[in-house]
């Protein structure tokens, strides 16, 4: 197989840079795998490792510092047949650490070559995530304060199934890279090398010293037994294929006559867990069954099962523009938290406003007409109060009628849930005007 090196753009590294050696080695690995350029996407980011994509006749994407793994994931998911090789430096492991962890956990079939030369060469030799604390670098004393990152240790802990650490000067690096590329899943090769332009100017680092340093570390030489599992892309496609198609939106033709020709504004005030939002949706669906335009705007705390839950609905024969409610036609008071959150609204009510008040829930003084319902006394659970209040509204002919409500329930619920809901809205005693 021919070389994939780009004759028009030979490597431009500093004399003696181990990146040049890795460029040649990677080409050998590609050749031994019988790959041609259109089979490969080289993805790189910033720094000297970011020059790699220009040296090869392959597909190539060069992006932002530390983000190469993100583009590579998109390319591989879109084109699973491509061999995607990512080159990043030790700098990219620091700034893109979250993506490294995620790539290890995800196990998408990518190969990451970390061109690890222990400093930011391009910007003047500052310390990176792998700079030893005793090195002299362009960051003054700062590297003495931080501990270098063990890339392979982190990768293994994060779930990478194939991790290799090696010297750029090993004679079989092409074979090491080839095996990593051939591994089905995320593979990482941490290749230690020398940056003659910056790092080794002030620090004595030789191939022998690299070998000695590597010998002191626990070896990382390929498959990580405890991390073997299915490759993400294949697994995704298998699970995706088993998903049921999403249903199209349900649309409803008008089957009933609205109970009012006016715009109706309803605020339901309750507590988390009372299924206020679901009841609001059912009220809106009831409106749709009478050909009304509707909106539903909800308000609840970021926690669940605690605090207020509020739903604001508008049902109108006209187009609804503004969705705010300042003077509601109906307020349903089911829980003290919701009432407290919107206590101001009670001051703005006029005499035509109906307040459906659950017995035991105090409401601030105001001008609305109060209709009290003892939901607890009827043996209804708190989770059913909002639903029951819809039954009350329909029996009073406020906003919705019974047929609209039952049609909405049939549209929203199925089976036992539907039967239970119908039973509640039919049997609820509507209470009395106060």
């Amino acid at each position, binding site marked *: 197989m021919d070389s994939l090196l780009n004759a028009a753009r030979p490597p431009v590294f500093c004399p003696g840079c181990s990146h040049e050696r890795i460029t040649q080695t990677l080409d050998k690995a590609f050749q031994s795998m019988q790959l041609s350029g*259109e089979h490969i*996407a080289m*993805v790189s980011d910033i720094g000297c490792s970011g020059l790699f*994509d*220009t040296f090869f*006749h*392959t*597909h*190539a*994407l*060069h*992006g*932002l510092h530390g*983000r190469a*793994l*993100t*583009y*590579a*994931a*998109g*390319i*591989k*998911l*879109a*084109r699973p*047949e*491509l061999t995607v090789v990512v080159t990043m430096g030790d700098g990219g492991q620091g700034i893109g650490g*979250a*993506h490294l*962890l*995620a790539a290890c956990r995800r196990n998408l079939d990518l190969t990451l070559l970390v061109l690890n030369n222990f400093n930011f060469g391009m910007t003047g030799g500052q310390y990176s995530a792998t700079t030893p604390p005793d090195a002299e670098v362009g960051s003054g004393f700062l590297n003495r304060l931080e501990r270098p990152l063990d890339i392979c240790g982190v990768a293994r802990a994060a779930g990478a199934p194939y991790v290799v650490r090696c010297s750029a000067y090993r004679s079989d690096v092409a074979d090491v890279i080839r095996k990593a590329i051939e591994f089905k899943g995320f593979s990482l090769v941490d290749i230690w090398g020398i940056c003659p332009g910056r790092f080794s100017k002030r620090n004595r680092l030789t191939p022998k010293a690299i070998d000695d340093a590597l010998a002191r570390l626990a070896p990382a030489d390929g498959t990580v037994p405890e991390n073997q599992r299915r490759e993400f892309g294949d697994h*995704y496609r298998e699970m*995706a*294929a088993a998903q049921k*198609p*999403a249903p199209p*939106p*349900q*649309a*409803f*033709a008008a089957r009933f006559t609205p109970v009012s020709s006016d715009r109706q504004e309803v605020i339901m005030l309750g507590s988390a867990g009372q299924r206020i939002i679901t009841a609001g*949706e059912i009220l*809106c*669906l009831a*409106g*749709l069954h009478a*050909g009304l*335009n*509707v*909106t*539903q*705007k909800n*308000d*609840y705390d*970021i926690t669940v099962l605690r605090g207020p839950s509020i739903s604001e609905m508008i049902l109108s024969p006209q187009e*609804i*523009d*503004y*969705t*705010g409610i300042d003077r509601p036609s109906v307020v349903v008071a089911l829980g003290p938290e919701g009432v407290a959150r919107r206590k101001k609204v009670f001051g703005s009510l006029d005499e035509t406003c109906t307040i459906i008040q659950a017995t035991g829930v105090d409401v601030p003084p105001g001008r609305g007409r109060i209709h009290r319902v003892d939901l607890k006394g009827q043996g209804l659970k708190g989770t059913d109060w909002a639903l029951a209040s819809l039954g009350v509204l329909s029996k009073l002919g406020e906003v919705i009628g019974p047929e609209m409500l039952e049609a909405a329930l049939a549209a929203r619920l199925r089976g036992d849930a539907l039967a239970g809901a119908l039973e509640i809205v039919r049997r609820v005693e509507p209470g009395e005007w106060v």
Partner: protein
Amino acid sequence: MALALMEGNEAIARGAVAAGCRFFAGYPITPATTILNHMLAMLPPLGGICMQGEDEIASIGFCLGASMAGMKAMTATSGPGISLCSEQISFAIGSEIPIVIVDIQRLGPSTGSATRGADGDVQFLQWGNSGGLPVIVLAPADVKDCYTLTRHAFNLAEQHRCPVFVASNKEIAMTRASVDLELLPAPAVIDRAAPPPGQPFLPFQTGGSEDVPAFLPIGGRTLVRQTSSTHGSDGYITTDPAQIARMLARMQAKVNAAADRLALCEHSPADGADTLIITYGVTARAAAAAVRELHRSGKQASLLVLKTLWPVPATAIRRAVGDIRRILVVEMNLGQYVREIERLLPGKTVSFYGQMDGRLIAPETITEAVIHG
């Protein structure tokens, strides 16, 4: 007529899928999360890909990779997330990668209020990139717009090879509304153009009067180069000032020169009006109610609702203003887009009403601003 109940975010997801989007990646963030939920329900059964990234940077990065591999891609986020996306947005602009970016605006600054609406990002979306090149920003006013403008957004991203933003708002995104699905405008689907066959391919070459390079995907039979570095038409880094200037001028012109074609607005002139209200987003609906209320009390105001915010639809704005003396700009922020209006209309009286307290601007507030300024 049949009505469905749908929130704005669902309409965006459905619009995207109808436009041919088959790749979505996002990170959970209120009030944009339900787009991720809907895409996750819709895309996998269609053979599409839906990913939850490790953060917003990864999510948009996945999209950029997938778009370069030929897929129509979208991400969706809100203020804190769109801030993280900034460097990737610059990449998409400078390297001409089609992508739709949805920003469901919430009250800022910073993490602000996750469940309160605002239109506080409208200058950020245009200028939150390094280099300052133009982008396209569409602003829905309601659930219907969410569907239609998302479809437009994909078409524009494909045609112009640039990021296109859908600048929605929590108040549209998470408010359900009745929608007549059959009445939703459905612009025809447009795909990015491939180069004419038989010629050597250069990834950023434009021919003749074209100002958008033809597209071939990474992974096809022709080798494709993409780079975030300043590049020539061959996709390799360049330091040639003439080439750099030509490339950047073209990228600026491809959006700005299309401003009139991109201008989506709704103008409702009123006879005898001496005030033109200019607004966008959810506030447009309160403004429409205010105009009706004014009419009922014998007063008149004209209304211009901007659906394209960037590039600024200057011609449409000037035409709507005509000889009206006074312009009232209403926004859910402390005064952002009003700067563009002031810039366009020297000599006119431009007043501003802004509100940034987590509440919708009420029609009465706008009526008051029209009458008493």
